[in-house]
């Protein structure tokens, strides 16, 4: 009898666990679902009571309105800007951070430890600390509305160098580097032909972190790329949202199209994304 009760309560716990997690999963996913619901409704049924919970038939109309019937933002151009800036940031950042991480992982040199801790210590400064003079400096450089303003300052950043150092420390044997030197490769060749190919997994992790960060970067684009034709999706969507009195269908369609590609890639490569995006916290 006691055994039976135990088993019952254990099944109960099991159901309770599943139930709770299911409710949470639904709560977390609901906003995404709801975004597509709104994006598919025409203005006429947008504000019905009770609120719409199922798709309407106007998704294409809303997309059409977003792309061709409004002149607030050049959505496709902003899309192109976002993709280009994010990719350029990924390529440059991964390059410079792998280089820096390699130096700290595989060479012995004077002040190495000091340099490493100095780089780590710079992470303690919040970006808001110098943002006002930083902006004035960018303006003095003439970099406002130039993509490089968003790309160059963070190209060799502390988190990236730290992550690459941790990875390269373990994954590249020094013997291999010495063998390459005996074969007549100089240090730059070693970096390009030995380190880069071997560091691909870590470079992928850093690429995910950098891409997601830049794709979602609102503040940077807001102050450095104020021109609507030069700017990225977060700023453009914010502008559209602010001026589109009641035209939610178009705004939500624009938001959905912004999120969807990243969300799909995330679902297909969720293991890499989740471990990558938390790597900075878990390895630290």
């Amino acid at each position, binding site marked *: 009898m006691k055994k039976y009760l135990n088993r019952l309560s254990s099944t109960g716990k099991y159901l309770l666990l599943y139930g709770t997690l299911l409710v949470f999963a639904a709560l*977390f996913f609901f906003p995404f679902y*709801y975004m597509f619901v709104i994006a598919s409704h025409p203005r006429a049924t947008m504000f019905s009571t009770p609120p719409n919970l199922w798709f309407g038939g106007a998704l294409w109309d809303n997309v059409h309105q977003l792309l061709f019937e409004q002149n607030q933002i050049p959505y496709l151009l902003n899309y192109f800007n976002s993709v280009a800036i994010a990719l350029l940031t990924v390529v440059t950042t991964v390059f410079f951070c792998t280089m820096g991480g390699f130096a700290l992982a595989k060479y012995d040199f004077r002040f190495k430890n000091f340099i490493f801790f100095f780089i780590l210590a710079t992470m303690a400064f919040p970006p808001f*600390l110098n943002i006002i003079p930083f902006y004035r400096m960018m303006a003095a450089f003439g970099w406002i509305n130039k993509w490089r303003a968003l790309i160059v300052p963070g*190209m060799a950043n502390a988190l990236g160098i730290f992550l690459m150092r941790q990875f390269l420390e373990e994954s590249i044997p020094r013997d291999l580097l010495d063998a390459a030197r005996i074969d007549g490769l100089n240090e730059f060749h070693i970096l390009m032909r030995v380190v880069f190919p071997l560091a691909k997994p870590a470079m992928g992790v850093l690429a995910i972190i950098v891409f997601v960060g830049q794709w979602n970067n609102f503040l940077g684009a807001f102050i450095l790329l104020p021109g609507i034709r030069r700017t990225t999706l977060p700023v453009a*969507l914010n502008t559209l949202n602010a001026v589109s009195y009641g035209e939610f269908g178009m705004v*939500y369609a624009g938001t959905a199209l912004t999120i969807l590609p990243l*969300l799909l890639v995330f*679902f297909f490569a969720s*293991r890499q994304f989740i471990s990558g995006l938390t790597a900075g916290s878990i390895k630290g």
Partner: protein
Amino acid sequence: MKTKTTLWESIGFNQKLAPYIFVSPFFILFVIFGMYPLVYSIYMSFFDMRLVGNRGFVGLSNYTRLFTTDAFFAKSLINTSLLLIFGSILQHVFAIPLAIGVNSKRLKARHLFKTLVFAPYITSAVATVIIFGMVFDHNHGVLNYLLETVLQIEGGFRWTTQGGPIKAAISIMLNWRFIGFNMVIYLAGLQGIPDELYESAEIDGASTFQMHRLITIPMLMPIIFFALTLSIIGGFQLFDEPFILMGGYETIGGPDQGGLTVAYYLMFLGFANGRLGRGAAVAWVLFLIILLFTFINRKVTNRLQR
């Protein structure tokens, strides 16, 4: 056969020089884009710097007026603290039990659940505010509809036009976006707790709740404090969500400054109001507050690890 060694090659073969060259981009960029504006912002904070020019040295008055006559700064500190508690720290109250639940050995589809809860983390603040716009809408939103029909609260709340509800709305968005991230950090921590501890506790007849209270939480303590530190550092710098939800500089934090955070206020001072010196002073006060909390957390964590 080599005939001539170029300068590039002779540098390239210099094993002593190479590491300095490899880390040099960081230092070059840091000096230009990090350190120079940093030092300049200290300087600015002691002057009455305006958009159009420098009106001279004012000593500490940019700092002192923040704590004496500046009602907006006081308001922004209160708002930031409330959002820190309900937006940033509350996440952990959800994230830890969720992580324990997801870590349960009997759970199937663990990864699917992780994926669903983590997904909001890759969504931008702008998209989050837009998506939640129709959730929080005063007249047509889902939330007010539920409040009216289920809880019988007539008219619901004015989520974007009243001080308290504004902070609640921002907190809900922050919880949505970051609980999954924290849950994953805790899951990594849970996997480091040896199974033997639970097995011996089970033999001693401990209930599930007791096991988590007496084993899981104490073992997780260093990670809890680490994750809390991250959240607190991020929480003090909260800008995107309130700024976007409240419609930017013009409203200075929305009705009754209900969404004005410290970072929002410093951006307002520096970018819309043309008071660069005062903005810089706010930035340094913010930095000192963050430093203080980081220091306290480190002390506590060190004590826990001993």
